[in-house]
């Protein structure tokens, strides 16, 4: 009987230890689209796990061979739980380069001007945007 208790106690301790191993600072960033101040931000994990079917965020690039050269267009788009959404575009080489630096599960922030052109594109890929499920 004592042996059985020891085994159970060891199992419980091991379970707590594994939980402690994946603990750490977490800072989910739900998607927010601010149409007044013309910016949007949020992390992709929070967007994907939102409790609605309207939240999203992401950036991408399209490269098109027109026959007279390659035309690159970058874009960022987001929609939040309040059903506010925005899509900005860019053809600026620096912002296109920034768009290419995205990674899975990144935090994304972007801003735009009155013409809908992106004026800021930023990514941040850090541990605190990951969920427990993703690292188990």
């Amino acid at each position, binding site marked *: 009987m004592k042996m059985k208790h020891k085994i159970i106690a060891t199992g419980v301790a091991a379970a707590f230890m594994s939980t402690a191993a994946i603990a750490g600072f977490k800072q989910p960033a739900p998607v927010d689209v601010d149409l007044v101040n013309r910016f949007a931000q949020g992390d992709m994990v929070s967007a994907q796990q939102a409790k609605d079917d309207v939240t999203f965020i992401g950036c*991408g690039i399209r490269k*098109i061979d*027109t026959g*007279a050269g390659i*035309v690159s267009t970058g874009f960022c788009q987001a929609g939040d739980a309040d059903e506010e*959404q925005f*899509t900005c*575009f860019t053809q600026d080489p620096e912002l296109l380069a920034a768009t290419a630096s995205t990674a899975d599960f990144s935090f994304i922030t972007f801003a735009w001007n009155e013409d*809908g052109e992106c004026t800021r594109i930023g990514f941040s890929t850090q541990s605190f945007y990951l969920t427990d499920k993703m690292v188990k």
Partner: protein
Amino acid sequence: MKLLVSLSAAQTVLLAALGLKVFSIDMQIDDLSAGATPHAAQAERQSDPAALSWETARAPSVSVEDMRLVIREELAALDATPRNQASTPAQPARPQPSPEQVKHAVSAIDRDISLFRSRGAINEAEMATLQSKIAKLPLAERRAALSTLTKAMSKGEIDGWM
């Protein structure tokens, strides 16, 4: 007997002359190999530019400027070769659409966007086609078309994604 003595004396003189000549040549070789100082090399370069590459190749203390000069000469020689000229054909000029063609393309894209706006949606294939059309526009018109499209999407007038 006198003849033998004379011949022997002549042989000795000739051997001595030969020995002196060999010694003299040895001295000159030593001077050339050990006496090639930077100053001497510099003097040779100034007096004989053709000897420059030889000097820089064998001298143990080659200056950076010498190396740059040699590299420049080699690159200039490469550029001057007909093979190199033939391997870089002139880039064909990119065809530029006429103002009429641009105007026509802009009108067609505006009609497409109006159609998607009235329908309220654009699917992925239609978006790809539309973006291909927009990409062919000159920069200013392209920006205007993208602005119109993204604003309509952002307002919810066209449901779709880039």
